[in-house]
């Protein structure tokens, strides 16, 4: 079981309120991602759930039990750190065995679990090495192995992939998702990368300055962002946000249109601009358009390739049903 509830949780550092009172419920077996720009309080929130950070006020419940004053090791949670936090003086085997040793589990059970974990994580050949002799991806797997053997109520991941290179990151992302499907344990995952959030989460929690901007499934966030911040943060390339006269035409203070919801023409369209840089990815092309008179630079995403050169004149037309409208308070107009 791993149902986690935060009730009016608040954190103050010195004079700064990092997290104003906040409520959140995470259901058993859910993969929840906390996402937001750096300094938004997502890591602090995770560390408060882990018990590594005190609460200024409020309460945390795990499976309906108040754990606010319970020390980290007694909460039944396992954490995977950004730096992996492996014990450098112990072999991989001893690292994985460590939480079980602390819990007083007998050695035969320990070994059985280590072997099982090592097998599923492809670490069998490395059990007698020290962390210093492993690659980044392998270290990450050891950290996950150390978490798995505890059979926790929930896994906490604190930006676990940000120290890996891009190729490894994609692979590890899949491994973690598969692990979740296999174990069906609650996982809370912190990242600043919205791609990770979109691909992995059952439920995304978007945070800004300690405040939850929106909670929802990845597609909910994509299709119906609750406000301008979420609209700009979720999706890549970023949504084009337009203010002023053009927005007023749609009865809004500002409107947003995602790059993939613009169609391009060389001869006619709603808006006219000049091609700046075109990024050819093969499958897609991103065109950065200047001098539209609407915003600094508008980004368009089109399938396949197009012959667009620097300085060419180009016409853009939004798909009208995909325009997001926001009011003066930056909130979505339904």
């Amino acid at each position, binding site marked *: 079981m791993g149902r986690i509830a935060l009730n009016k949780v608040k954190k103050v550092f010195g004079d700064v309120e990092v997290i104003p009172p906040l409520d959140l419920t995470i259901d058993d077996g859910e993969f929840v991602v906390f996402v937001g720009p750096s300094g938004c309080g997502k890591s602090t929130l995770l560390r408060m759930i882990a018990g*590594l950070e005190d609460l200024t006020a409020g309460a945390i419940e795990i499976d309906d039990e108040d754990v606010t004053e319970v020390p*980290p*090791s007694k909460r039944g949670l*396992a954490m995977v750190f950004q730096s*992996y936090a492996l*014990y*450098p003086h112990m072999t991989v085997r001893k690292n994985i065995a460590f939480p079980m040793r602390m819990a007083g589990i007998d050695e035969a059970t320990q070994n059985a679990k280590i072997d099982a974990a090592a097998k599923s994580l492809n670490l069998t050949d490395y059990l007698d090495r020290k962390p210093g002799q492993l690659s980044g991806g392998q270290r990450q797997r050891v950290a996950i192995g150390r978490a798995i053997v505890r059979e926790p109520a929930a896994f906490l991941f604190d930006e676990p992939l940000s120290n890996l290179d891009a190729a490894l990151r994609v692979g590890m992302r899949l491994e973690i998702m598969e692990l979740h499907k296999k174990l069906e344990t609650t996982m809370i995952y912190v990242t600043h990368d919205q791609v990770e959030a979109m691909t992995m989460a059952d439920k995304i929690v978007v945070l800004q300055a300690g405040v939850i901007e929106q909670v929802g499934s990845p597609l909910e966030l994509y299709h119906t962002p609750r406000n301008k911040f979420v609209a700009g943060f979720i999706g890549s390339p970023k949504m084009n946000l337009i203010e002023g006269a053009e927005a007023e035409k749609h009865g809004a203070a500002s409107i947003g249109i995602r790059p993939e919801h613009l169609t391009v023409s060389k001869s006619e369209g709603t808006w006219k601009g000049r091609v700046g840089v075109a990024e050819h990815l093969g499958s897609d092309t991103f065109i950065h358009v200047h001098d539209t008179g609407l915003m600094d630079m508008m980004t368009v995403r089109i399938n396949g390739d197009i012959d667009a050169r620097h300085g060419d004149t180009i016409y853009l037309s939004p798909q009208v049903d995909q325009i997001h409208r926001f009011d003066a308070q930056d909130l979505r107009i339904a």
Partner: protein
Amino acid sequence: MAIVAETTKFSKFAWPILAWGVALIFFFPIFWMVLTSFKTDADAVKPEFLLWFTPTLENYANMTDNYDYWRFATNSIITSVSATLLTLIVGVPCAYAMAFDPSRGTKDILMWMLSTKMLPAAAVLYPMIFLAKGLGIYDTHFLVIMVLCLINLPIVIWMLFTYFKDIPKDIIEAGKMDGLNTWGEVREILIPLAWGGIASTALLAFIFCWNEAYWTVRLTTIDAATLSKLIEGNRAPEGLFFGRLSAVSTAAVGPIVILGWFCQKQLVQGLTFGAVK
């Protein structure tokens, strides 16, 4: 490499010669002391025996008769070793708490500790003698150990603090998640990881204790007197005993100089409180 290319033939030869020359000049007084320790007292002051002489071990053999060397050396060992251990026992937990559980006052406490090192010893000389005599601990090992511990404590805490700070906080937190209590963190993580730092701190504290020459001289007479006191008491042999004085001096500094060779790297990080690595 442009830097290599610039090297001229001249500097290729002159540079090492100059460096070796400077090193030999600096080492010369120590060399001279060791050399003199193998001369008889009579030979030691004769110009004709400056470098060519018949070496003798008689100065070392007579060290006990001439100076009661072992009595002072024993005192030095007892007080330095005990003071080093005591300093570590008090300093490790303190530095640990400061490095991993810092509060808002931690920086100020550290600065204050360093500032106690700036308190001139002479200013509190008489009160210390007064207290020591009043408490009946003047000229005892206990007193010397306590004073050595206190004067080294700030530097030891600073050094340990800088070593502990290098241990990622994540690892300690992972330990917390895995079920370690405070003592467990120290035993399972801190000591194994910071072993090198703790050892070199201990070594340096030991060297400072061994070489201390203000309090050990002024707070002892004979029972707890250390090698510093012995050498200071023979400050002016009027040239008659260069040989034997060199021998006892060599015996007093030899072990420490050799210990020092092994910890020069750590010395830098330690003495600069981690600001230079």
